[in-house]
């Protein structure tokens, strides 16, 4: 049981490319708002689904519970982007990374540090970026 919320980093203004929220994904965004990164866990085969999706890609079951993911993981790789879509123009350059969480989930997210090549393979933790219109998840080197 994880009951400590993730560290939160405040950002002024709205999220540059806000996600849609559907009936299915609402629990994810509500939990993130409260500081918890979650994923649906298949009740039939036990697999975690990320990105969250209503059907299990492994066994096609819809049964699931939302579980809280532990924050610790490693940086699989990253890039810093210098040419962006219009929505993200104000953030240039920005870094994104592939993070492998200890819970066995791989995800893509913003990387809040000025990472360098030497940071690949190092430990990271997940954090919440709190914008005026809602949260995003991100990772930072520890």
């Amino acid at each position, binding site marked *: 049981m994880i009951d400590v919320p993730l560290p939160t980093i405040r950002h002024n203004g709205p*999220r*540059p*490319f*806000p*996600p*849609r929220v559907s009936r299915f*994904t609402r629990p994810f965004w509500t939990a993130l708002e409260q500081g918890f990164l979650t994923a649906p866990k298949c009740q039939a085969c036990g697999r*975690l*689904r*990320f*990105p*969250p999706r209503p059907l299990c*890609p492994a066994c096609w079951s819809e049964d699931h519970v939302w579980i809280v993911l532990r924050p610790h993981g490693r940086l*699989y*790789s*990253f*890039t*810093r*982007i*210098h*040419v*962006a*879509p*219009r*929505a*993200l*123009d104000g*953030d240039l*350059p*920005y870094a*994104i*990374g*592939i993070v*492998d969480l200890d819970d*066995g*989930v*791989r*995800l*893509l*997210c*913003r990387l809040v540090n000025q990472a360098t*090549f030497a940071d*690949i*393979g190092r430990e990271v933790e997940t954090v919440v970026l709190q914008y005026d219109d809602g949260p*995003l998840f991100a990772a930072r080197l520890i």
Partner: protein
Amino acid sequence: MAAQVVREAATMAGVSRPDIDAVVVAHPGDHTRQGYFHTFLCSSLGIAAKGNVIQVLGNGMTGGHAFDQAVQLIESGRAECVLAVGVHFESGIPTAQHLDYSIRLTGDVDFQSIFGPVPISWYAMDAHRYMFEYDVPRDTTAVVAVKNREHARFNPLAQFRDPLTLDAVLSARPIVEPLGLFEVPARSDGAVALIVSTEARAKLTGQPYARIRGRGFDHEGIHQIADVPTSALDYSALTRAAHRALTTAGTELADISTFQLYAPCTIVEILATEALGLFARGSGAAAAANDATSIGGRYPVNTCGGCLSRGHPPEVSPLYDVVEACSQILGRAERRQVEGARLAMCVSELGKYNAALVHILEAHS
């Protein structure tokens, strides 16, 4: 422009308008104002088709699908003479606006696109990981850009034909780190038209022609990255698709004279050559640096200059690759000619080689 390219292709193939009984168009993307370009094209060219008229798409594989579709229409008996066309115009659209559209294509729109991963950024992360895992310096991977420019110098269809030095590649401004301006594709426009027909019809022309000897496909069931930690560098869909293509062709990798690989970035060509089994894992960059993938090397790759130098209108590139493959095996590649080329492999892909489509072409004269 599309119409003119079609006329030229038909002339080269010895085909006249009423011969064409099916039309396949590589979906030109959202910048083309004319919707449903395929039926518009039929009307513009006065082509009444009794086999099929269809538009196909699938990320970078779009042009590959168009060619494959044409082949399939012949194989299934639905048509005898198919026109496959790709057209792409994006240079009139600002880059940032273009990226608004393209980030929706290469990621889960609600959980990945929100972070702004432009299509080539996925490859950039492969580059970083490759350098990390195999301890390869950036200049060894960057040499692929120089090699492809050397090939493009002798390709009259290429977008970039001026010589390029490794220093220039390494000192160019960063685009998606570690990749700089010359390691990622420039923005391009282009059009290609191909005629694919039954062998009986091809023989009638009395001209040399290329036969499709093998075909393989694989989709790994993943969109960009897996949801669990695993290697992102093995491009295993290509390994399987190539194996299927070689099996249907009844041939072996060693018999292939030249490879046209869909590779928008330097690192992609390197990883694709490794996935094909041309080189051991982690040694593809070094092999390229040692000229193994140059014209004259053991495995000439992207003899036309590839996405980086020939140019990369995404939906059209795989059709260009078929043109180059035909030029090579029919001995028409002039100063780019691979000596004695008989079998050519063409590869297109989608996502981050989450799927691969492979064709093997053979000369017949």
